[in-house]
């Protein structure tokens, strides 16, 4: 369908190089441009917020403080007191993904969280970190994580492989959830936009009127995508906290 209208719904995910010849030489991609922009936005927010340092915060300072306290509470509530040392990491992850998701919603911008290589790398890092933290806190005893307490012995041969598989599937579900959500939203946008062009080119004046329906769907989808952009960043961050909690407290 999209092929007929000459629209490639997946073209928006095509990687190119940014920053001209220099970017081409160092393979700095268009997705990296967006990452850099996201990092600059996050840093700027704090630069502006910290320039005021008012007792009664203004808008930008309020935004920085709200995001700080939001993630801080999430980390402390989920991981506990030990979570304090992971707070900067979780905050970086949350801010990076959230701003990346939101930047991806703007036309002609690139959604780097729609790339499985990116989300997979992030998820693998979280997985590796939580596993290392588990061994750091409990040594070899962290392997007991795979045999839940209070389970009869004859069940263990069945249960331990299940626990191991569910543990190993964490980075997969973590990365695919984010990648699929962002990709799906962007594909649907382009597919509905393609419908509009098909209706207009195929049905003429009637098609122009009928194209209001996919247009309305796209508008509704925009609102949904803003929700998803926040929600998926939140889900990624809270699951990171949960994995770290499991590593520190063993259930």
């Amino acid at each position, binding site marked *: *369908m*999209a*092929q007929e209208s000459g629209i*490639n*719904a*997946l*073209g928006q*995910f*095509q*990687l*190119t*190089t940014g920053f001209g010849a220099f970017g081409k030489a160092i*393979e*700095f*991609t268009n*997705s*990296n441009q967006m*990452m*850099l922009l996201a*990092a600059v936005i*996050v*840093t700027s927010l*704090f630069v502006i*917020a*910290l320039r005021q*340092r008012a*007792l009664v*915060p203004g808008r930008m300072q309020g935004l*920085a*403080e709200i995001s*700080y*306290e939001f993630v*801080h509470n999430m980390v402390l509530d989920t991981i506990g007191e030990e979570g304090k040392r992971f707070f*900067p*990491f979780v*905050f*970086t992850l949350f*801010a*990076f993904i959230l701003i990346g998701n939101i930047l991806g919603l703007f036309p002609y911008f690139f959604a*780097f969280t*729609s*790339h*499985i*290589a*990116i989300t997979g*790398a992030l998820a693998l890092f979280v997985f590796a970190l939580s596993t290392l933290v588990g061994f750091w806190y409990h040594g070899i005893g962290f392997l007991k994580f795979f045999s839940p307490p209070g389970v009869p012995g004859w069940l263990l041969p069945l249960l331990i492989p299940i626990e191991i598989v569910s543990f190993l599937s964490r980075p997969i579900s973590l990365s695919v*959830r984010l990648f*699929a*959500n962002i*990709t*799906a*939203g962007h*594909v*649907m946008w382009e*597919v509905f936009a393609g419908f509009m062009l098909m209706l207009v080119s195929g049905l003429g004046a009637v098609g122009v009127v009928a194209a209001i329906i996919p247009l309305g769907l796209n508008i509704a989808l925009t609102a*949904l995508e803003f*929700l*998803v952009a926040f*929600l998926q960043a939140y*889900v990624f961050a809270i699951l990171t906290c949960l994995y770290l909690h499991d590593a520190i407290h063993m259930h």
Partner: protein
Amino acid sequence: MRRTTILLAATTLGLTPAIAVAEGKMPQMDFANPLTGAQVVWMAVIMVALYFILARWALPRIGGVIENRHNRIASDLETARRAKAEAEHAVRELNLAIQNARESSQGAIAEAVNAAKERARAQSSTLNERLDAQISAAETEIEAARRAAVNALGPIARDVASSLLHRLTGEAVEPGRVDQAIAALSTQG
């Protein structure tokens, strides 16, 4: 949250494979493209930089600002609480002072009343004494006047009786007989 996830998962499952088939490969799955790997390397660089900016500079400072505010609010509340306690203490002292003043003033009033009564009593007793003295003096004077009058009555009666007898009888009367007759009359009456 779960509903949107399910919805999007369903749409992903429903749409993406169809499109992927229609369009050929998804760019995300094109791992032969060197840029797919390169973007991950650059992401690592950017995220490490962002992590150090946030962890070393931004987050501790924002945390400090927030903590500062919490401390300020706590100290302000503490000051207010102390001021309230002081005010309550002052009110208690004021009430106590009012009560004391009332009691002492009542004592003073009672004392003044007693003193006035005492003085009035003293005054009235001296006045009574003087009046009594005057009355007794007046009684003595009256008694003396009465006695003088009674003493003066004898010669008057003799003179009257003498002149009456003289008129009636036309003779001079012996003074001694008149005195005897009067004496006899006065012992009788």
